[in-house]
């Protein structure tokens, strides 16, 4: 991995991180987009797609409602892609084991993202005070300038989360990759299945739809039987 790789993935982390809450919300921040984008700039979009696929299914049901801050799946996706590529290129862990191991390292480290985002939002309380002071002085022209400062906080939080996943994550990947790689490799297919199925359970456990289990169960059984017959 080169410094350019780190720079480019950090750039993706900040752009996607801003899209998550502060700017636009075009859904570039979703794992299914952010991870392949990171993979693309690192020269391996397919690994990004695998990371995005697993993470999207795992966190598809988490909603950013009101003041709730969901896990920072964006930074886990971008940093997880970087770690998976690192495991593949530098530690010689094969796919899809590298993808699975990278995610298991990145996900708990990503919990820190919630702390940084919380800090950025608390920091923005000060902006309200600055805006009030400007209005008291009759400076209505200052509002946009004060508002834009908030973007810096969100961008900084994204970068901090990304760094907090990547830096210890690379150490953990280098330490655990050679020993856990063969263990995970033996059951890679089953692990590959376990992630989306656990994600599905989270969706069913949190979605607010009557007869959700019936709809899912019927669809699953019907589709499996059709595939078996085909």
């Amino acid at each position: 991995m080169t410094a350019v790789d780190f720079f480019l993935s950090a750039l993706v982390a900040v752009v996607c991180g801003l899209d998550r809450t502060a700017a636009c919300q075009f859904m570039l921040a979703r794992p299914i987009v952010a991870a392949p984008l990171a993979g693309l700039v690192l020269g391996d979009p397919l690994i990004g797609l695998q990371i995005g696929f697993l993470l999207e299914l795992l966190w598809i049901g988490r909603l950013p409602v009101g003041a709730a801050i969901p896990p920072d799946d964006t930074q886990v996706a971008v940093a997880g892609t970087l770690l998976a590529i690192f495991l593949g290129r530098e530690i010689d862990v094969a796919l899809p084991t590298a993808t699975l191991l990278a995610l298991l390292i990145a996900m708990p480290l990503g919990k820190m993202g919630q702390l940084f985002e919380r800090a950025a939002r608390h920091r923005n309380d000060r902006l309200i005070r600055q805006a009030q002071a400007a209005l008291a002085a009759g400076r209505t022209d200052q509002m946009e300038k004060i508002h834009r400062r908030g973007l810096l906080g969100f961008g900084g939080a994204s970068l901090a989360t990304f760094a907090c996943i990547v830096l210890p994550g690379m150490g953990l990947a280098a330490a655990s990759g050679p020993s856990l790689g063969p263990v995970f490799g033996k059951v890679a297919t089953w692990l590959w299945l376990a992630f989306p199925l656990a994600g599905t359970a989270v969706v069913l456990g949190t979605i607010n739809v009557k007869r959700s289990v019936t709809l899912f169960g019927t669809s699953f059984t019907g589709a499996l039987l059709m595939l078996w017959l085909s």
Partner: protein
Amino acid sequence: MTIRKLTRMQLGQATLRSFFLQGSWSFERMQSLGALTVLAPGLRALYRGDARARAFRRHLTYFNTHPYMAGLVLGTVLRLEEKESRGEESYLDAVEFREMIMAPYAAIGDALFWGGLRPLAAVIALFFAAKELVWAPLIFLGIFNVPHLAFRCIGLPAGYFRGLKMIDFIQRRRLPDLAIRLKEGALILLGALCAYLVFLGLGQEKVATAWGLVVPPAILVMTWLVRKGISPLLLIFTVTALVVAFGQLI
């Protein structure tokens, strides 16, 4: 001289700014400063001097709604401010209106966009990702952003031109019902996607497809655990540990 009517250019400027509504999101007042920034070009056109400063101050209060629905709210707020600047009477003033409508619109937006459209678009894109097609993210972005952008670009001008009639207009669209249909669609597709993944996995391990019927009960057990409060992270680590232990045994 005070201008009493907003131009299309000013509405366009406000619409563009609404894409950065949450740029200064804070726990204390949430989207307050962002909403004021969206309204600012309009308020500057409508008021001068002390009246302008007063208008800015009354909009630097608590505001929180779904970011995609905010245009509808703020467009109507601009219309009400325009009336107020002309001295016309309305049964609701701009601040009363935004306080009354922001929570219901937030609930509609959360259910429709976050709870309905986003999972549906994601599951459809995941079928393409499962086939390792690298343009799967574009499918997701296309399905999600066409209605999203249409809603957002039209929202603020529509709120402005319809004024308070916007409430009836949104009510007649039955958006909460649409949100439920989208969620149901996402669940059905998710079931089919899981079946496909299980079918592939069993095929790779040369296990009979019929064993796939064990999966729904296993998912139900995990669903029960999630409803009991176990976090997704703990769930995935537990499942990983069980799978690895199973691999060591066989």
